């Protein structure tokens, strides 16, 4: 049947698209192609590379965060803490102890892991939405600490710039933006591989069981607490690694990364793209970061300034638009952006009104 053939054809193509996307990402810095509307100027320009690096970083970060939300069913509102922990600890080791970057990064990662293990073991004593609230409280404490600037270590509301003399020379300066892009891409590939490996491991199956029905896992004789803690620490480790990459990308630690808004934006990314899927959080993170930057540009542009106040005022706030888009996505598009092709296919199948039981079963399932 021709329909079936086309189905397997697209499916075979679909299996190869990650490789194609990776090739495109590897080629991007060498391309001078302009993408009007999407990016400002040629792809390979330092500004665009910087934006793309941030997109990749946040795509990876959202993927790591989804290890908790989409894979284990843990709604943590304190993920910013481990991200900012990695950033601040690494920066502080360089600034205060005078250690070289590589050593500081290792210690920063260790700091993030220990912090996640410590706070995770406390907050996992409660479950469900109370877990969310407790993680939020811990993260808020971290945020307050960073803003109060204890001992002049965190730099308070200004944050602190990374010391240029401690960083590898190839990672500073606008002419080396492409190297930072490679770092962000490497972090993304590493995170994707780590998450994929973890969810396919035996522990990953237990996580899935916990997400579906925690009581049943308990009845099977497994203690969910330990498995949840492993997921929490792994996600925390990936987040602090991301924090270190962010330190390199932005050249410093800022208290904005410690706020609850930061965690909430991670949540928005994951849900926007599609929680619990392999590519969803990545797509969501890239989309969110791109939209956030482009909307900020749009808000400052002349065409918005000329609009009547009713339109201009909300358009000048990217967070307002993102919040509204988020509500709309949650409401109208459960499963996120990555489910759109599937939904279109289902809608088409329904319209074709085929009598085959498989097609009708598929259209009935979501």
């Amino acid at each position: 049947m021709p329909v079936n053939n086309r189905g397997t054809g697209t499916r075979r193509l679909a299996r190869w698209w990650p490789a194609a996307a990776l090739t495109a990402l590897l080629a991007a810095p060498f391309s001078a192609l302009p993408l009007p509307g999407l990016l400002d100027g040629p792809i390979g320009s330092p500004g665009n590379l910087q934006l793309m690096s941030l997109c990749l970083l946040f795509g990876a970060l959202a993927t790591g965060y989804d290890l908790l939300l989409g894979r284990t069913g843990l709604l943590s509102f304190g993920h910013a803490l481990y991200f900012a922990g990695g950033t601040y600890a690494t920066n502080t080791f360089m600034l205060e102890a005078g250690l070289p970057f590589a050593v500081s990064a290792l210690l920063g990662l260790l700091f993030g892991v220990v912090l996640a293990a410590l706070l995770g073991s406390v907050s996992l004593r409660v479950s469900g939405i109370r877990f969310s609230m407790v993680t939020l409280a811990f993260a808020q404490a971290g945020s307050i600490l960073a803003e109060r600037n204890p001992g002049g270590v965190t730099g308070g509301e200004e944050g602190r710039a990374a010391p240029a003399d401690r960083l590898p020379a190839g990672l500073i300066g606008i002419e080396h933006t492409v190297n930072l892009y490679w770092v962000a891409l490497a972090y993304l590939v590493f995170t994707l591989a780590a998450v994929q490996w973890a969810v396919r491991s035996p522990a990953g199956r237990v996580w899935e069981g916990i997400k579906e029905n925690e009581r049943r896992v308990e009845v099977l004789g497994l203690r969910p607490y330990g498995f949840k803690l492993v997921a929490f620490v792994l996600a925390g480790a990936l987040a602090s690694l991301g924090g270190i990459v962010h330190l390199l990308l932005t050249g410093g630690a800022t208290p904005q990364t410690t706020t609850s808004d930061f965690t909430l934006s991670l949540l928005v990314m994951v849900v926007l793209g599609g929680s619990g899927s392999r590519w969803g959080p990545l797509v969501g993170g890239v989309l969110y970061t791109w939209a956030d930057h482009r909307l900020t540009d749009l808000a400052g542009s002349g065409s918005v300034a000329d609009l009547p106040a009713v339109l201009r005022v909300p358009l000048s706030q990217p967070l307002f638009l993102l919040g509204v888009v988020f509500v709309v996505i949650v409401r109208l598009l459960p499963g996120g952006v990555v489910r759109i092709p599937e939904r279109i296919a289902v809608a088409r199948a329904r319209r074709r009104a085929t009598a085959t039981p498989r097609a009708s079963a598929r259209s009935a399932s979501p």
Partner: protein
Amino acid sequence: MSTVVLLVFTGLGLGALYFLVASGLSLIFGLMDVLNFAHGALLSVGAYATWWAAAGHLPGAGTGGAGFVLAVAFGTAAGTLAAVLLELTVIRPLYTRPRDQVLATVGVGLAVPALLSAVWGADARPFPGPRALSGTFGLFGARIPVNRPVLIAAALLVLIVLKLFLTRTRHGLVVRAGVEDRAMVTALGTDVRKAFTLVFAIGGAAAALAGAFSGLYFGSVDPGQGTSLLIFAFVVVVMGGMGSTAGCALASAVVGLVQQFANYCTTAGLGDLSVVVLLAALLLTRPRGLTGRLA
């Protein structure tokens, strides 16, 4: 001695603010399993509406006497209306998807403060409190700001009204039964959805009132105020045992007092941290909260 009296009043005043935010949050959660992340936004709506009315935009409202009462009433009404709108347009369509309800309130909680800062700026606006509430009075040698006891009285009043509503009225009965066992109430043929809207309205009113009073307490309103108060309200709700109004009141007082005393005894800012340490200690010893209820 005088310092202790002042700290007690300041701490209880802050606790009163936490109670106003947390009581609605706790009721909504207890009944609907929805952690309302937009609750801080409702507080901000109340705060800005009160400020807007008191600044002379509403005829009859002002910064003194009956005019200020009218402004607070307007702010509370605005918050209530916003809560009902939120329930009808965002929460109710997601009735069968509890987690998505929480996520949707996160979106609203991001969008509303952004909109407020787009309209009135991101900086704090001075809050025009009435002169009668801006002075201090002497007690045991301490100069206590008048607004502290007013806040405490307002919170006590809300506590009593809530208790009476929950225990003495038919609607309260439905809400209480819904908190205990939603499925059973539905099965008995009571429309829990009406109770949802009602509880959202009550929660919104309390949050908006908290917004008006936070203007008095801090002397200013800013778009982020709701969110920062919300986080302490979360701590209060977890500590108080979810869905329990009395536990909420107790935890609010404890959190407010601990925060103020810690701020005074150590350097400023450690008070906020001590609250989180308190929460961690409570979780390690009594994971079900002060009242021992399992929500």
